[in-house]
Every structure is written in structure tokens, then in C-alpha cells.
């Protein structure tokens, strides 16, 4: 296919007049070819101009598309992890059906290690309590804290109470969250107010979108 035929298809695709099969092939090309995307963007700008839309921008000229591309630059692509996983099947260490067994094995190993560690570190009473009829996962969560916390869980009268609310008073990190073929734009009569607010959307990290500034 020569470039003219491809561009002709692009024009038809832009108008939703290309058969679905051809669309799929061209969509793949369009997504990866910056030159084709620029042409596609100019087709959109031509249409917007003819319809008299205000604020028409060309690709690469501070358009909304440019800003969206920058803002999404730091985000992972959808389905990327699944795609990578399916493409790197040879690099997997174990078959997918074995993975749950591997996770259970890891948890059991951690629990066993914790029990052994408690036997060597903690008083006998604590060990007895830790070995009480708890599920392996509970054992892990009880065994994981440092010795001070383990001592608190034991009812031994000599154990010094320890404040387990460490950090609760510390400040929490902020959670995230026909004379002319070109119709005049509707707002041409009124003075156009173009506030350069865009810079304020990228505070510090240029790829982190923080929403419009009001």
C-alpha cells in the first residue's frame, strides 16, 4: 500500500467510513506512527475550523491532546502487565496453576520461621499463647511484631505495657486523589479570555496531573 492509499484510508477512517477490518489494521499503524497521528490531528483541526469552533489548535501547538499526552505520561498503559505476562511466558518460573501453591508454601515457611524465632526469643508463656489454636496466617501476624509487641500480647504481669499506637499521632501523609468557508467562532465578538492556567496544573512534577486550578 502506498502512502496516498494509506492516507486516503485515514481520511475515510476519520469519517467512520472505513470497513472494520481495514480500521483495525490502520488503527494499529495510527497508534504507532507519529506522522500519521499528526496528519490525523490536522484533519480534526480542519474540520473544527470549518465548523467555526473556537480555539482550534494544531498537534504540537499547545493543544489539549498535547497536555493529555503529557499528563498521562506517568501512568501505566492499560493491560500492559497482562500483555507482558502473556508475552514473557518463557521467563515464568512456574506454571500459572502452581502459583497459589507457591504462595501458600511461602506463607507456611514464614510462619514456621516465626515460630522458631519465638521459641528462641520469647518467654515460654508467650510461645504457648502464640502456638494456641490460631490459623497459620494469624500466627504470622502475631509473630511479625518486634519483641515489645509480642510481650504485650502475653498476659504476664511483669510485662511492661507498650504503646502500640505508635505513629497514630504523627501527621498522616495526605491521601490522593459563506463569505468564508470557515465559520466564525461563537466567541469572536466577545474578547476571548485565555488564561494561561495550564502551567498551574503541573505543580512540581510535570507528569503529575493535579486537576484544573479554580
Amino acid at each position, binding site marked *: 500500500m502506498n502512502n496516498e492509499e494509506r492516507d486516503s484510508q485515514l481520511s475515510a477512517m476519520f469519517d467512520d467510513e472505513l470497513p472494520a477490518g481495514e480500521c483495525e489494521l490502520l488503527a494499529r499503524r495510527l497508534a504507532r506512527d507519529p*506522522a500519521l497521528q499528526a496528519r490525523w490531528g*490536522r484533519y480534526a483541526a480542519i474540520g473544527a475550523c470549518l465548523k467555526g469552533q473556537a480555539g482550534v489548535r*494544531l498537534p504540537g*501547538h499547545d493543544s489539549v491532546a498535547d497536555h493529555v499526552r503529557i499528563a*498521562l505520561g506517568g501512568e501505566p498503559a*492499560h493491560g500492559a502487565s497482562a500483555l507482558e505476562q502473556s508475552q514473557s511466558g518463557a521467563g515464568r518460573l512456574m506454571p500459572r496453576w502452581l502459583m497459589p501453591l507457591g504462595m501458600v508454601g511461602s506463607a507456611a515457611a514464614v510462619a514456621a520461621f516465626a515460630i522458631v524465632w519465638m521459641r528462641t526469643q520469647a518467654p515460654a508463656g508467650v510461645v504457648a499463647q502464640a502456638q494456641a489454636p490460631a490459623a497459620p496466617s494469624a500466627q504470622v501476624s502475631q509473630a511479625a511484631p518486634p519483641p515489645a509487641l509480642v510481650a504485650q500480647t502475653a498476659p504476664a504481669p511483669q510485662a511492661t505495657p507498650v504503646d502500640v499506637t505508635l505513629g497514630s499521632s504523627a501527621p498522616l501523609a495526605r491521601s490522593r486523589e459563506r463569505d468564508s468557508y470557515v465559520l466564525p467562532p461563537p466567541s469572536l465578538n466577545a474578547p476571548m479570555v485565555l488564561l494561561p492556567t495550564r502551567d498551574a496544573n503541573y505543580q512540581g512534577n510535570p507528569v503529575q496531573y493535579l486537576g484544573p486550578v479554580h
Partner: protein
Amino acid sequence: MTTDASDTSLVQRVQRGDRGAFDALVLKYQHKVVKLVMRYVRNPAEAEDVAQEAFIKAYRALPNFRGDSAFYTWLYRIAINTAKNAIVARDRNPVDFDLDLTDPDEPYDMQNRLKDPDTPEGLVLTDEIRSTVNAAMEALPEDLRTAIVLRELEGLSYEDIAARMGCPVGTVRSRIFRAREAIDSRLREVFEGGLGRAEELG
């Protein structure tokens, strides 16, 4: 034929992890969404910010888009909701117009914004694009001009244009393409060095 095959193909590519396909969707709809949002916010700069936010929300929500409706219908709803939220947020946090612009403690950027609210470069660029497109339209042969006017201004399908112009659908497709190419060529001449030229060379 007017199906949604074009958008569907691009949406599916985005859902499979192809970010470039989303860029194409934004390029296609950015002007339409800004125009839509302008009905609510009535300020071009704010409309562009809201449109930008709407596209970002759409990207994040795209894995859940099942294609029950056309992509633009779905995007339209997101844009409207984003615009409404922006209005609510603006009403909740109104801009303090009692700023003392001579106060050196006021942020420099804010002073500049309020003193110089419009961006002449943006206006000039838009006007230049408009006049270039207009000149290129005037230079088009009649059949090409009619075809693209029927498509872009009247919104007719290729089939309807073919019926109107008394020619095959393939001819309509060719005429619209040649019209776009002629205008695009003129745009590239005028905006050489910008306009994605670097991208094309790269």
C-alpha cells in the same frame, strides 16, 4: 456505512495497552469536547482544562468501557459530568477578586494572569489557521469543495453525499481525501517547522 468501527478499533487498542491509540482518540475529539464544555464553563481556558480532565478520566475509566454505546456518547457523559463538577468546585472556591495587584506579596504568576488575561499567541495562531484553511478552501476545485462542505458542515455520510452529488461512494471518498490533503498541504506550508513537522521528520 457510518459505523463506529474507527473508534472501536482505537478503543480496543487502548484497552490492550496501546497508549498511542488514545492519543488518536483525543486528537479526533478534543475540539468537539472543548466546544461541548464551553456550554457550561464559558471560558476558553477553563474549558480546555475541563476537557483535559475529562480525557484523563476517560482514559482511566476505559478498561471498564464495554462498548454498549458509542465511544463519543460515553466520552460526552464524562465531559458533561466533569464540567458540572468544575462549576460546583468553582462556586465552592470562588476566585478572590479583591487581590491587590500592586502587592509584591501576591504571586507573580497570578498578577500576570489577571493583568493579561488573554494569550495573543493563541488567538493569532487560531486566526492564522482559520485564514489558511479558508484560503485553501477557496482554491479548491468545486467538486472537492462541495464534497468536504457536505461532509464537515452538513455531516452527511459518504452515501448521502454520493446521492447528492450523483457520483459513486468511492469518488466521494476520493474527493474528500483530496480536499483534506490540499488544505493540509497549505497548513504545512504556512506552519512549517511546527505542526507536527518535526514528528513527521522524526
